[in-house]
């Protein structure tokens, strides 16, 4: 008995797919922006921040990095709701993504910061820069440039991982696929289409991040 592939449903459900793609794209763009910002803040706190703050941030990073994203999502959406912090599906998904990327980003960025030679700080201060100016211009920007490829991969991994937000009924691309396959009874074809869209998004996101890297870090002769 042969199986006949059927993609005739594509036209009818293209609107649903596009809506799903849009939420996936929105989640990763907003999530990555705030996630990287959180990562920078945590990396600063862990490498240069006050002594009492370092173990707290360290604990946060270890907890997030050693538990599955799915459980983090459930904890935020179901767990926190049960003790009185209610979020919408989309807010919960976005929060989970930011917290997740914050922890991974922290470790990646911290590695970059700690690779900065001590003389660089001193050189910055001796030029009359404030601590904040030194951190921003001398430490952070060159560090980010060094670790940008690793951070980009982490953002792509987060985008692919975000497929599970459909499990709390956030209406992203995988949710759209679930919805469509429950109507057209063509589960395999539907997930093939969704998978290929994810692949295209991953390739596009990688290129976009490369472009952002070029914009943020125009060739600096004194980068190292």
């Amino acid at each position, binding site marked *: 008995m042969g*199986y006949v592939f059927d993609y005739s449903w594509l036209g009818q459900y293209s609107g649903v797919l596009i809506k799903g793609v849009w939420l996936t794209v929105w989640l990763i763009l907003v999530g990555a922006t705030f996630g990287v910002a959180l990562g920078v803040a945590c990396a600063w706190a862990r490498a240069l921040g006050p002594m009492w703050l370092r173990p707290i941030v360290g604990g946060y990073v270890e907890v997030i990095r050693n538990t599955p994203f799915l459980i983090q999502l459930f*904890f935020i959406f179901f767990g926190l709701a049960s003790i009185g912090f209610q979020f919408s599906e989309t807010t919960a998904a976005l929060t989970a993504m930011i917290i997740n990327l914050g922890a991974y980003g922290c470790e990646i960025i911290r590695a970059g910061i700690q690779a900065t030679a001590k003389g660089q700080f001193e050189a910055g201060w001796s030029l009359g820069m404030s601590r904040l100016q030194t951190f921003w211009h001398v430490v952070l920007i060159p560090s980010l440039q060094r670790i940008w490829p690793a951070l980009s991969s982490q953002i792509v991994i987060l985008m692919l991982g975000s497929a599970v937000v459909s499990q709390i009924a956030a209406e992203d691309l995988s949710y759209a696929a679930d919805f469509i396959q429950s109507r057209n009874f063509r589960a395999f074809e539907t997930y093939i289409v969704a998978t290929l869209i994810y692949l295209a998004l991953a390739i596009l996101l990688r290129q976009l991040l490369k472009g952002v890297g070029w914009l943020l870090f125009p060739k600096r002769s004194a980068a190292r």
Partner: protein
Amino acid sequence: MIEFTTWDILRNLLLAARWTVVLSLVAFTGGAIVGLAILFLRISKGKAARVFASGYIELFQGTPLLMQLFLSFFGLSLLGIEVPAWLAAGIALILWTASFLAEIWRGCVEAIPKGQWEASASLGMGRLQQMRHVILPQALKIAVPPTVGFSVQVVKGTSLTSIIGFTELAKAGQVIANATFAPFTVYGFVALIYFVLCFPLSKSSQFLERKLNVAHRNH
């Protein structure tokens, strides 16, 4: 209504965690075997083999594990067999793990100086002999820390198999949270058990990496 004690919750979660461990071991072992095969293709001399291997890696690393699980689940049932969730989960996790291990190990093989290949070739070794006696033993040493580090991703990856209906730790957490109406406690415990499984792996990966770096500096 039945009352659930904290111990009831924890005991049932721990029972389910056995399946997380078993599935992780299966995925990691199977993934290592398939990954080694992909690695050989990826660094082989034939162009077709290299293109196939990098396409494989791109495909499995560029798509969500969740979609791979669904495709494995529904794809296998197209063949007309009743697919148990554990089989679909095992196959998808093995293929996914293989793509990452192959890429990690390729980096390790490429870190071996070219002179090692040339020296062994000049001794008349064939490609397999070179790999077996010269390259892999050296690559293995630097491959251990990132491989152990990736095993954490495998353990966490198994949580997605709950979505296609395999009853492991995450699924048990969902069922128990629904039965007890105490999602905060239940998911807290679930996270704790995952943490207990993953944290030693993360730490030993970091420890091995530091040890390796020290060894390298003393050359």
